[in-house]
C-alpha cells in the first residue's frame, strides 16, 4: 500500500482514531495502585496479626464493618489493577489467534474472582 511507505507511524495512528481510551486505562492503573498501597499493607498486617485465628475468630474479624469495607475496597482495586496489568502482558507476548480469547478470558476471570470475593465477604459480614 502506497501510504504505508510514505506516512509516518504517528500519521497512521492519527487517522485510526483517538488514543483517549489509553489514557483512561493508564490513569485507572495509577489510581488503583495508589489505593492498593495502604490496602495491601493493612491486609498483610491483619493476616499476620490473625495468623493463629480459628474459624470463629476469623468470622468475627470479617464481621467488623471496617474490615469488611476495607476488604471489599481492596478486592475492587486489586482486580481492576490485575485486569489492566494482565491485559498489557497479553498484548506484549500473545500474538495471533490466541490473543483475543486470552484478553476476554482474563477480563472475565478477573470479574468472576472479584464478584466471588465480594459476595463471600458480604455474606459473612451480613450473615446471621
Amino acid at each position: 500500500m502506497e501510504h504505508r511507505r510514505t506516512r509516518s507511524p504517528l500519521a497512521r495512528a492519527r487517522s485510526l482514531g483517538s488514543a483517549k481510551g489509553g489514557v483512561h486505562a493508564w490513569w485507572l492503573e495509577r489510581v488503583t495502585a495508589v489505593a492498593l498501597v495502604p490496602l495491601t499493607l493493612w491486609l498483610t498486617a491483619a493476616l499476620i496479626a490473625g495468623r493463629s485465628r480459628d474459624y470463629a475468630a476469623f468470622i468475627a474479624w470479617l464481621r467488623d464493618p471496617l474490615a469488611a469495607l476495607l476488604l471489599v475496597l481492596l478486592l475492587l482495586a486489586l482486580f481492576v489493577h490485575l485486569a489492566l496489568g494482565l491485559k498489557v502482558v497479553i498484548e506484549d507476548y500473545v500474538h495471533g489467534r490466541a490473543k483475543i480469547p486470552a484478553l476476554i478470558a482474563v477480563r472475565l476471570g478477573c470479574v468472576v474472582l472479584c464478584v466471588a470475593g465480594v459476595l463471600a465477604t458480604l455474606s459473612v459480614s451480613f450473615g446471621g
Partner: protein
Amino acid sequence: MPNTSSRPISPHLQIYRPQLTSVLSFAHRVTGLTLGLYSIALVMLLVAAAAGPRPFSAAQRLMQSLFGEVLLFGGTFCLFLHLCGGIRHLWWDSARGFELGEIYASGWAVVAVSTGLTVAAWLVSLFLVG
C-alpha cells in the same frame, strides 16, 4: 503483529547483560503475575470462610503447613517488591528520578526496602504473634 516493515529491528533480549534496571523491570512483571495467583488464593480463603468451618479449616491447614508457609513467605516478598517497585513507578510518573544515578539509587532502595519489610513481617509473624 507481523513485522511488515523491512527496517532493522533491535537486537534480541538475550544479547544484553542483565543489569539492575532490566532485572527490576522484569521482576515487576513477574511479581505482578505471581500476585495474580495469590489473589486467587485470597478469594478462595474468603469463599472457604463463607462456606463454613470445614472448608475454612482445610484452607487454614494448608496455609499452616510448611509448604503453605513457604508459599506465603514467597508471596510476602512478591507483594513488597511489587509495592516498592510500584511506588518507584509512581515517582517516575511525576517525571522525576530519571538520571542514571537516581535510577540505580531508587532501584537498590526497592531491593533493600522490600527485603527488609519481608524479613520484618516474618519476624513479627513468627516471634511476636506466634
